[in-house]
């Protein structure tokens, strides 16, 4: 599945719920399903700045593709980063850098987050791009 196809799939998944409370429930499920993140990797240099809850994001290379792992102390935030990982992990830096994130608006995520979490989402996307940039050969 390409990045665009995965984004499309998420937009469809979220559109199955009318109520935002149910969309949150879906995000929470994504958060709960995110694999455990090793405690020793919860270091300050992996913390994403600009989030009120703490979010750690780590990136490694595997056969030319970036593999993201992450965690957060808040479960909704964990769901958001899990969703982003499902889109952007296992891609080449070029794929990430040439994609856009308009799907977040189509889901309606941005407008349905508190202002602090909107900032957090912005920071997560920026960090993903920065990491892609720094892993580009």
């Amino acid at each position, binding site marked *: 599945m390409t990045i665009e196809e995965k984004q499309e799939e998420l937009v469809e998944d979220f559109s199955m719920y009318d109520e935002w409370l149910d969309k949150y429930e879906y995000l*929470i499920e994504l958060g709960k399903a995110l694999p455990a993140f090793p405690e020793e990797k919860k270091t300050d240099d992996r913390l994403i700045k600009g989030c*009120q809850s703490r979010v750690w994001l780590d990136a490694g290379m595997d056969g030319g593709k970036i593999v993201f792992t992450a965690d957060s*102390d808040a479960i909704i935030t964990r769901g958001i980063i899990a969703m982003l990982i499902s889109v952007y992990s296992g891609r080449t830096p070029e794929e990430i850098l040439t994609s856009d994130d308009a799907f977040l608006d189509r889901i309606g995520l941005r407008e349905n987050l508190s202002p602090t979490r909107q900032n957090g989402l912005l920071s997560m996307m920026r960090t993903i791009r920065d990491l892609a940039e720094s892993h580009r050969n």
Partner: protein
Amino acid sequence: MTVQTFRTLFPALDGNVYGKALVYFDNAATSQRPASVIDKYARMSREANANIYRAVHKLSADATEAYEQGREAVRAFIGAASREEIIFTSGCTAAVNTVAYSFGEAFVRPGDVIVVGEAEHHSNLVPWQQLCLRKGADLRVLPVDEEGHWQLDELGRLLGAQPDGAASRVKLVAVAHISNVLGLVNPVEEVIGMAHAAGVPVLVDGAQGVVHEAVDVQAMDCDFYCFSGHKLYAAPGTGILYGKKKWLEAMPPFLFGGEMVDTVTLERTTFAGLPHKFEAGTGNFTAVATFPEAMETARLARDPQLLAAFDETCRCLEDALKARSDIRLYGASGDAAGPYRRAGVCSFTVDGVHHEDLAQLLDKMGVAVRSGLMCAEPVIRHFGVSGMLRASLLPYNTLQEVEYFMQCLDKAVAMLR
């Protein structure tokens, strides 16, 4: 008066969010405004929008008169001796900053001590901390114990002779009447008594206190009392600095310009008398004009029948939170007559659930609460958590809302676990 009758005065409480009835439990941040205040604001905007004190024309005279009526309403509400002791600022924060700067300029020297409570809002902490940094003074803390109660013997030590035999150098004590996190009515009178016995003035941050307690500044004998209009039913952008005349007269102005002067030459300026000396620039005359209506509302809120219902509503919330073994409620309320009564504010955490997640789900259920550090980081850290959830009520909140809130809390917690 019944809760329902009082409630109908506030149009916003009828509102919907996301198609659900609004449950507004963020009153400690900002109270809702009654229609009388909303209407007065609109009427003044239409009919008396002109600069105050400055012109001879009718509109200016009307605006000035409304401004002074606002001052008189506040003076009467807190029992100040004269209008000269009521200074309008932009908010409680600006009021505290005014004292921190002006009092600091006049009275604080290197090595002096300022005492603040440990559970202060940043607005009654940072101005003092920065003053101390500027002046080379020491900031000392009146600590709270695990129940959120002041450890007054520590204050006694700070105010008494020092271990080396030197006299205490405490110049001022600044404490909250009611902490915006713990929500307990602090024994400010006792602190004032102790401080005065040592010749030290006391500033009381009344942002929460004035909302829940019948304040008489002369009986309390505080030297300064600061609060905001927007937490007390008035329009936002207004704050009050009450100060005893003897202090206000001895302090230099904080901001300069506008009508706060007497005569100005290019070389020097003599300043106007009180209260104008501390009111540089154009005041928020439209919002100040809402004080007579806002104080009338605050007076209605103290109706005995309404207060009895409010006490019961608050107790229900407190009991419901305490009944849950996975919830930690901060600050222990004492007996009904004494200090540390709980005043409509419950801050808590739920085991294994992040406060921000809870606040976000509650919001989607129509419930407005505050979450996070609540502008009082030191006391949140004191209790070893990264943030709390706060439900803060006013007498227009109902028992049904508390029940709905607890149901929503259960549902949100179940979703998050």
